[in-house]
């Protein structure tokens, strides 16, 4: 009797261990398959002309230069606009607000925005800017991306500032430093690596964002630096080219996908290194 129970428990345990290891194997295999396809097809499409020529018409040679430029420009502006706002807001939550009901509401709203569907952000900016200006523009794309940057930076800034020991704040206060100076010269400095991590993660996040650009920055087949005109970006070009029927466009789409993934993974690895130094 006792032995029967024992045997049953062991069998159940064995089945469960196999299932758990199996799910890990399934997950890893799926992800390896994706990376493998990405590397094989991506390197196949990668060449020097990808970086030097603009997006081609079907059938002719070309590259992704204008899309890369557009992605870099729009991401850069979005980060420059979004980072200070996010940092200051995160500072309010960690330093001034902490337990107030207002901070509670802001934190809640921020966490919702952090995971809200990015296509909704696109709709919002469309109504706010594109519909009023009556044309698609890189400005709108930049605005949409900044809206995505802000919650990411707020979340990491707050988390990192909360890791700064209170004794540092008390030490600053005890030598007579006013709150604002102690925040800027002591807590921000102590949390610097962590805050930079947040910015890197935000860049990683927006460099692959497609949905919010679809009807804000739209697309542009040519080299353009005019923020008042539609602008190409890597994700949009990938979307357009992959959905087309042309072989050479597919190759460029894979090359673009590889570029984005490489950028995102590099940024995340840097962010992790910085973060581990912070903690």
């Amino acid at each position, binding site marked *: 009797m006792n032995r029967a129970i024992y045997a049953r428990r062991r069998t159940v345990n064995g089945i469960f261990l196999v299932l*758990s290891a199996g799910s890990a194997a399934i997950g890893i295999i799926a992800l390896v398959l994706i990376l493998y396809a990405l590397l094989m097809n991506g390197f196949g499409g990668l060449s020097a002309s990808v970086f030097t020529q603009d997006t081609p018409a079907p059938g002719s040679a070309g590259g992704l230069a204008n899309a890369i430029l557009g992605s870099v420009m729009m991401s850069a502006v979005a980060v420059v606009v979004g980072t200070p706002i996010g940092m200051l807001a995160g500072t309010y939550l960690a330093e001034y607000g902490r337990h107030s009901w207002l*901070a509670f509401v802001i934190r*809640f709203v921020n966490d919702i925005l952090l*995971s809200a569907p990015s296509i*909704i952000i696109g*709709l919002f900016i469309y109504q706010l800017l594109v519909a009023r200006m009556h044309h698609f523009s890189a400005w709108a794309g930049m605005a949409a991306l900044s809206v995505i940057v802000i919650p990411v930076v707020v979340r990491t800034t707050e988390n990192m500032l909360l890791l700064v020991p209170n004794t540092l704040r008390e030490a600053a206060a005890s030598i007579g430093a006013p709150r604002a100076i102690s925040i800027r010269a002591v807590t921000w400095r102590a949390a610097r690596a962590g805050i930079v991590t947040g910015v890197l993660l935000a860049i990683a996040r927006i460099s*692959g964002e497609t949905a919010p650009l679809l009807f804000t920055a739209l697309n542009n087949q040519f080299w353009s630096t005019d923020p008042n005109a539609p602008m190409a970006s890597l994700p949009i070009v990938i979307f357009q080219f992959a959905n087309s029927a042309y072989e050479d466009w597919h190759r460029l789409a894979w090359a673009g996908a590889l570029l984005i993934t490489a950028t995102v993974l590099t940024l995340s690895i840097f962010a992790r290194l910085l973060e581990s130094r912070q903690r």
Partner: protein
Amino acid sequence: MVDLALSENLVIPTRAAALKRFGRSDARFRLLTLGAALVVVAIFAGIMVSLVSGSWLALSTFGWGFLTSSVWNPVTEKFGAFAAIYGTLISSALAMIIAVPLGIGIAIFLTELCPRALKRPIGVAIELLAGVPSIIYGIWGLFVFAPYFQVHVEPWLIEVFGNVPYMQDLFAGPPYGIGMFTAALILSIMVLPFISAVTRDVFETVPHLLKEAAYGVGCTTWEVMWRIVLPFARSGVVGGAMLALGRALGETMAVTFVIGNAHHINESLLAPATTISATIANEFSEALGDMYVSSLVALGLILFAITFIVLAVAQIMLKSLERRSGGKSS
């Protein structure tokens, strides 16, 4: 202090004046941070206002019928959201059915079974993969997964379930490759790293003492997980799953490529379908006429409402766990 005094025409600041100045700059900085924090709220409010005002035309024209009708006809300007809502809910639900058990399995593997040397590399790999943009999953689904699925898996599914009552309707019809089931599978692969990362973090908050005590009285690994770890971490696991559900519901690019963008409801999971986000992504920039645009915005409003509820529940579940484990943030 000498410099300051010089710059202010040699008026030596008294202690009180200095304190006053500090007080003012303090207040200014505080207001600045408060203003930035309010920007977050303003964005949120702006999203809601713009979605409601943008969808007003469609919602006031079609009324509640917008939610229940599955007609989507840009030519006659008759729009109903039901097919898109149905596709969104079903594809996400299927994705969660697949991804949650797998994700928990991976988390258990990482916390309890994995050799110590592999634990960190696999953990880091999963976290990195959680950050891979969804368009990558979309392009892989379109070019690699869907063609394979169409040739090797779908005919088999149709054959195997062909004579099983109920199931035969779910797996009926020609193998298109793209469709609801393909989209759900891609979604589940996409949220999998996410679920496993959150679940693993939650499992790590379970006190070692509890687990050791259970092992000490002779529990098997399964019993420790099922009776000790999972009950302890329940709200965190549910919160993590809800967070992943929120992502899946609003996911655009991974789905748009492989779902087929067909505005009708088909019993078969192999048939093309559509989701709210795929409809908006495919049609918005080419939509002509106020009613068409307004109907698409109304779809966005519905999506925002659904994800808001799901994400809010996720927040509450995760917060309650955080509080219990002593404010440790993940």
